[in-house]
């Protein structure tokens, strides 16, 4: 174990913990809100069961705007909102607010894309069998799109890790922030290098797990 890591191990563990908290909440928001939102977006499209041009265009624009915001600016722009929600705009808890917003927008788009990949005939079969909207979603759409949904969540998670690295600007901490403050700003390039290495390993692990699971559940 390099000496510098031993020296800073308490701080390193803490920063890893912060990253996990930030990314964990992002994943939670992606699944709990992004998945339903992406499904709703898909179902509001033309010729779909909840077809609604106005609702679709509005949500579509909202998702696009959030996704095209430079993330750092989104964080700053959201400060009043964050303060209103969690009472402070500083710290790991505060960092979670803009992260969940981008997480929802990010994953909902990928959910919509995976659903668009399902052959049109699956929906027709479902409707012809008299399936309700709930049945269509859970017994048809999510069954056929499941590997795409897993791959999407993998891609999203990796983006969330990347987004989390800049949360230092609002005191969010995390591995990225540690690398900047202790490595870059303290001229400990080796420390920064080790932190980057940890992140690369983390990303590889997530990517590998995601692809393996997606492949395993795809029977088509």
């Amino acid at each position, binding site marked *: 174990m390099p000496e510098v890591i031993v020296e800073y191990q308490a701080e390193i563990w803490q920063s890893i913990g912060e990253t996990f908290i930030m990314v964990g909440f992002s994943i939670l928001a992606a699944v709990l809100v992004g998945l339903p939102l992406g499904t709703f977006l898909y179902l509001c499209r033309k010729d779909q069961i909840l077809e609604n041009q106005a609702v679709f265009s509005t949500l579509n624009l909202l998702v696009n705007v959030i996704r095209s915001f430079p993330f750092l600016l989104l964080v700053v722009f959201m400060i009043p909102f964050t303060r209103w929600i969690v009472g402070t705009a500083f710290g790991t808890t505060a960092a979670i607010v803009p992260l969940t917003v981008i997480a929802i927008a990010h994953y909902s788009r990928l959910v919509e894309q995976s659903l668009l990949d399902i*052959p049109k*005939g*699956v929906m027709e079969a479902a409707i*012809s*069998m*008299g399936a309700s909207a709930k049945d269509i979603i859970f017994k*048809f759409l999510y069954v*056929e799109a499941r590997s795409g949904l897993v791959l999407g969540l993998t891609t999203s998670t990796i983006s969330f890790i990347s987004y989390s690295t800049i949360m230092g600007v609002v005191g969010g901490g995390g591995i990225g922030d540690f690398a900047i403050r202790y490595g870059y700003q303290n001229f400990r390039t080796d420390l920064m290098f080790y932190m980057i290495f940890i992140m690369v390993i983390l990303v590889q692990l997530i990517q590998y797990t995601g692809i393996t699971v997606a492949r395993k559940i795809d*029977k088509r």
Partner: protein
Amino acid sequence: MIKIQNVTKRFGDYEAIKSVSLSVNHGEIYGVIGASGAGKSTLLRLINLLESPDHGEVIVNDDSLTRLKGRKLREARQSIAMIFQQYNLLGNKTVYDNVVVPLELSKVPKQERESRVMESLQFVGLDHFKDQYTAQLSGGQKQRVAIARALVNNPTVLLCDEPTSSLDPNTTAEILSVLKRINENFGVTIVIVSHEMEVIKSICERVTVMADGEEYETVTIEPAGIQKIDRSAQGFVERLTDGGEPHA
């Protein structure tokens, strides 16, 4: 049994079905034939309201489907089964799990499901394949799974959109004989859309010829075959079927 009255369907400015009326008797096997783009699929899809008509009424089993909405419409659809050219099975479910879906949708008690699925699979001769995924099956087997799925909930009507158009002649004959058995054994009314005269000739009692979204003619197919139908319709049908893509 099935009554389509003055039904019109537009896609944007294009009138795909132009005030078509027809009626299918209980227990009949009814054909719809015509060139590509004539509106055959649209007409079929109007029967279970996969397409909703702009005008006119659709009546199935004495229910005016065009007046039903929401849950009532879904319940009506549960006794109108449909099979497709592309089978439309769920690739991520096994054969068994595909066939059980209609029973789940109509909330058939769990303890009844297994025997009904197995009965349905036996009927199409695929009970040994119940644990396979559909990707491993041939086209004919996939269509038989789709038929088992269509049959499992005891439908009164079976709609078939080009059910054999992706299959070779032998497999086509097998599928048609399964359809005929369904009609004979269970009294299911069948409407079958095809662009192949051979298919229509071999199982239908009557056939409507569609051309440009209109009902060109409806004729009875005598037991002796299509030769007996009205001369003008026969000529039309031949032009429709032989003038298009080459077929076996």
